[in-house]
């Protein structure tokens, strides 16, 4: 038991001793000062006060409480305490104290005056509560809050930057962009849109697209695309519309539309990209017209040359004049080549403009093979074309176009195997397709060119010097096979010959 308790007068009333024991056992620090003595010395402290402050009873008793300040005197709480003591009043503060080892403790201190019968203050009782943990948590919270605010600020800046960055991209794009909400109201348009359609953003923003500018966008196909087609075919690309626009005249536009599926506030918004292809289409059309007119114009002199040459050839034969016969034959071959070139050019032009007419009929596949093989066999004395496999089946296809493919592949096989003497044609009937493979023993094709040889005007490096040609035949053949929903491919190694194969469906 504390010495203080022992010194309390024994009155026979046990309750005072019980209270004293309770004070002593409290987890809160308790001190009592003597207000009658100068400098308010401590006359009592409990165990908890000792353990909280780290000082021993001996170091505490007889001293003013200020030893706990450790020089940290300039505190508002201290001023309040001094004021309360001076006025003999109750007071509660949170004050920074320092343990004997110098560590900071936050002290929630409550002081109450004790008065004698005349009302004079004799003592102050101080109850001390160590709230360091709470204070630390509060401080940590404040720090965390500041940190969070910094982060938010940082992120906001980043977002603003990235928004500005995206906006600058959107504004740089030379394509018109429109953002619509799900009710087709315009949320924003980019600069290019305003420049192209000669309208101000403020005039269109917030308007329903179809109602803007006297309904210049009120096009049934566009309405159908955005309202009915897009929700089930998102994104929708390459939708062409041609329309007369009030400020800019007739335009051919390609539209790409995408509905935002991302959950959140942007969901269901529609992004509409509009590309003006009016000029491009005109140029394409002019190019097509040019090729078409040019090849037509070439045919007229060619008709004259061919007719005159054949007539002269006939006359020479009639007169038994053999001197120029080989010259006539060479000229005839050159004319044939020129003629084929003109047809190929026309084909390319037609394929590119999608104007190739296909004429699908039912015929025997074997007849097609025979006709094409005979056709090429007649032009070569060096090679024998050997057919193997099964081809006796009725198919639905374009006879003339497939014959064109076969003639091209067969004459290539002959042309690119100058040292060979045989070309193999193998046909087979698959469950739904027919397959043709044409094998030669010629120069072959490097693997890097296997895909590219089907491109327009492409010619493999190793052959372009030795063999004349412009690189149209395989392109046209591939397009024809594609139109039949079939596949054309090559298997080949340089120097070891090539196998060109295609499959097409038996039924269309």
């Amino acid at each position, binding site marked *: 038991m504390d010495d203080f308790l022992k010194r309390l007068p024994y009155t026979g009333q046990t309750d005072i001793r019980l209270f004293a024991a309770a004070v002593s056992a409290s987890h809160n620090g308790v001190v009592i000062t003597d207000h009658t003595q100068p400098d308010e010395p401590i006359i009592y402290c409990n165990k908890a006060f000792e353990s909280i402050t780290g000082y021993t009873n001996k170091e505490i008793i007889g001293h003013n409480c200020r030893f706990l300040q450790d020089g940290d005197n300039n505190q508002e709480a201290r001023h309040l305490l001094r004021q309360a003591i001076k006025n003999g009043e109750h007071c509660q503060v949170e004050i920074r104290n320092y343990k004997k080892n110098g560590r900071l403790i936050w002290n929630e201190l409550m002081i109450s005056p004790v008065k004698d019968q005349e009302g004079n203050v004799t003592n102050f009782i101080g109850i001390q509560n160590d709230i360091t943990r709470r204070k630390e948590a509060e401080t940590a919270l404040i720090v965390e809050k500041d940190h969070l605010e910094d982060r938010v600020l940082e992120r906001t800046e980043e977002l603003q930057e990235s928004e500005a960055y995206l906006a600058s991209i959107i504004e740089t794009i030379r394509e018109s962009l429109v953002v619509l909400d799900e009710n087709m109201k315009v949320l924003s348009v980019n600069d290019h849109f305003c420049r192209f359609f000669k309208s101000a953003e403020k005039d269109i923003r917030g308007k329903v697209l179809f109602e803007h500018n006297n309904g210049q966008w009120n096009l049934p196909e566009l309405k159908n695309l955005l309202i009915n087609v897009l929700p089930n075919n998102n994104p929708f690309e390459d939708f062409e519309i041609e329309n007369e626009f009030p400020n800019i005249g007739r335009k051919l536009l390609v539209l790409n539309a995408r509905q935002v599926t991302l959950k959140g506030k942007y969901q269901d918004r529609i992004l509409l990209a509009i590309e003006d292809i009016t000029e491009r289409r005109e140029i394409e059309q002019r190019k097509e017209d040019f090729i078409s007119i040019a090849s*037509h114009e070439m*045919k*007229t*002199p*060619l*008709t*004259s*040359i*061919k*007719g*005159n040459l*054949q*007539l002269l050839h*006939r006359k020479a034969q009639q007169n038994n004049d053999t001197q120029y016969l080989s010259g006539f034959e060479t000229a005839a071959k050159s*004319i044939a080549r020129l*003629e084929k070139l003109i047809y190929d050019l026309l084909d390319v032009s037609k394929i590119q403009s999608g104007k190739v*007419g296909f004429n699908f009929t039912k015929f025997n596949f074997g007849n097609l093979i025979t006709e094409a093989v005979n056709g090429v066999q007649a032009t070569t004395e060096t090679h024998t074309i050997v057919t193997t496999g099964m081809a006796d089946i009725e198919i639905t296809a374009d006879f003339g176009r497939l014959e064109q493919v076969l003639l091209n592949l067969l004459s290539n096989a002959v042309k690119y195997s100058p040292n060979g003497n045989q070309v193999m044609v193998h046909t087979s009937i698959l469950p739904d397709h027919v397959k043709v493979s044409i094998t030669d023993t010629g120069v072959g094709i490097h693997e890097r060119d296997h895909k590219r040889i089907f491109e327009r005007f492409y010619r493999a490096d190793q052959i372009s010097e030795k063999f004349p040609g412009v690189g149209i035949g395989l392109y046209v053949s591939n397009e024809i096979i594609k139109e039949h929903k079939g596949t054309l491919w090559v298997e080949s190694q340089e120097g070891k010959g090539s196998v060109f194969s295609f499959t097409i469906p038996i039924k269309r």
Partner: protein
Amino acid sequence: MSKILICDDEQEILDITRLILEDSGHKVLATVNSNTVASLVEKEQPDVLLIDLWMPGMSGDQVVRQLRKNESLSHIPIIVISASKEGKEIAYAAGADDFLEKPYDIDALVAIVEKQLA
């Protein structure tokens, strides 16, 4: 000797076609002016008419339609000659009897004419 009328706006085509057909023993009349074809047919009553498709003035198919409307001339066989493959459909739609694509082989030209004469 059969009488053949040819119309083409290109003089050189007209010349070689005439040479080929004359060499095969036919009598050939030729004109570069498509607008005169109908009256020439009426006046000369040729056994066959050979006509180009794309020409200044009346186009070949217009001439064919005009002739087909005239009952006294509608029996005359007409062969359309064109540098364009697509001309075939146009020619038949107008009422032509046969079609030959330019540039043609002289054998093919002679054969198609004889077929119409037979």
